């Protein structure tokens, strides 16, 4: 059963357009992190950690895009919790990366 807010069995109904927006946003984050990780100085332990953390951001983005694609193409709806957890994880990684750069 789907209620007025588009929630069905604890999962949000997602249209093709909504999923495209989410994926575009994740691709943008991934592109920015690729730019950052290739612009850091490759020698030095601090920059290595920054590189690694932004690489991890890319991987989390890939995982989230896969999740959205799978959820939308299979069920047409997805749970919010994995997306929120992924966003929080990305934020933590970005802040840790910025902290290590400074």
């Amino acid at each position, binding site marked *: 059963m789907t209620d007025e807010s588009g929630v069905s069995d604890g999962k949000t109904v997602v249209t093709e357009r909504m999923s495209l927006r989410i994926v575009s946003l994740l691709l943008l984050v991934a592109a920015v992190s690729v730019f950052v990780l290739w612009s850091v100085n*490759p020698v030095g332990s601090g920059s*290595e950690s920054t590189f690694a953390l932004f690489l991890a951001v890319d*991987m989390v983005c890939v*995982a989230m895009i*896969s999740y959205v694609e*799978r959820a939308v193409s*299979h069920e047409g709806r997805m749970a919010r919790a994995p997306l929120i957890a992924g966003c929080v994880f990305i934020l933590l990684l970005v802040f840790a990366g910025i902290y290590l750069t400074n």
Partner: protein
Amino acid sequence: MADMESPKEEGPEEERSGVVQRALGWFDSRLGLSYQLLRPAPQYSINPFYWLGALATVAFVIQGVTGSIMMLYYVPDPTQAYATTQYIFQNVSYGTFLETIHLYTAYAMIMLAFMHLMRGYFVSVHKKPRELMWVTGMAMGFVTLGFGFTGYLLPWTIVSKSATDVGIGMMGALPQPVASFLTFLVVGSGSDAGELLRFYDLHVFVLPAVLLVLLVVKMYMLEAHGVSQPTTGVESLPPKKKKLIPIFPDVSVYLVELAALFGSAVIVVSVVFPLALAPEYSAALAGQSVSQPDWYFLWIYQILKISAFEEAGLSVALGAVTVIFLLLVLLPFIDRGKTRSIRDRKLYVTLGAIFVAEVAVLAVWGYLTPGVVIPDEAAVLVLGGTALLVTLGSVVAYKVVFGGLGRMSRRGGSGGVRADRAETPVSARAVSSRSAALWTSGIFVGLLVGGAYFIAGCINAVVALRLGSSGALLSLGASGAGLSFIVVGSMFLLYRLDLGSGSIRRRIRAFEVGWKE
């Protein structure tokens, strides 16, 4: 003219419009790109526990990539091995990250392979017709351990060389033809240069080739048999779960998701705990340090440290370890019962839980007591106590979890009449409670393993206190705190369980008024 009027015979590409579509269609009809190569997987296999082996393969691929980059700089010679490793750490771009990722994915590969093995054991994937898949998987597990053993020596640090020498020394205690063959295989003439070169060759060429061949063989058998069904059977699953989904794109996208999450987790761990290179090996330093193998061999190392197995008893201990491995390899031909249900395999499930608990306790104990010979009575207390605790825990878990579940299934299924599980489809509610019960029993086993470990820690600390060790009080406090946490966790779990079935409340009441069901 007749040719122009004849129907098209070239295939589907001619029906498509546009240059790109037609080009794709041309290639598709010749190469069979859209032909379904791999058998589709059932929807219920979209679960990380079904893909632990695939994740181990991902770890292997990451190691292949990072190892290939390190090969560009590393020189397998005792005079240069350490210096070139140090060069990678200090001068190569992202060298420390590369080394750390290589090591941690190796650890992850071993841990995932062990989890894959034990998951397969508990849900009995080794039964007909997958016996040879199990044997192949065990062979892959041994090759994975071989990767760890051979790779450990390559940096030529004091820790790695001393531990490898102990391992090679232990090979001499094996029965004679095996001992000579293995010693020749890994040491050769006996010189350091020969030993390092052989380890390098095994690590970089021989073992990867063997693993790839075994992987292809196992994948072929997986393709033939498909993924294993749930232990409860597919009849009880809702139709949505039984639906077959194609490997591409559905399962592949899921695997990409898992692999990306795994990769990000390994990267984060490598940032938090970056690898530091130990000092270089020298004969003078070797005498001053305590040799200790890496964590995945610690449980064997701890068995060999028991005083009864010192010197003359070494071959007995090695024989016992060999028997454990042989029993695991030959499991499909020993456990020949038809049932795969965890509920009906109490003996094997309990034995498996004891094995996991003993391995965990021995590994942690070995880590805490490097180079210390273990008194026989302490070994009996800790190992026997762990086995006893896990057995008791298993009996209680079966009584509480599956006993309560049985009642719930009967209540929800056929109105108080015992239903024949083989014939009557189980209701969706019973399936979900069965799944919840399996999870609960899993957490329960985890708590028991933790409890066994902390009890062992308490015993160890008490023994150390009696021997006058200064740090033992802290260890005792930590173990006691851990044990309290486990007790509270178990009580909470039992309380939660009781909310569903009310079995404990009923039994307590039965004690109060006399035992009547």
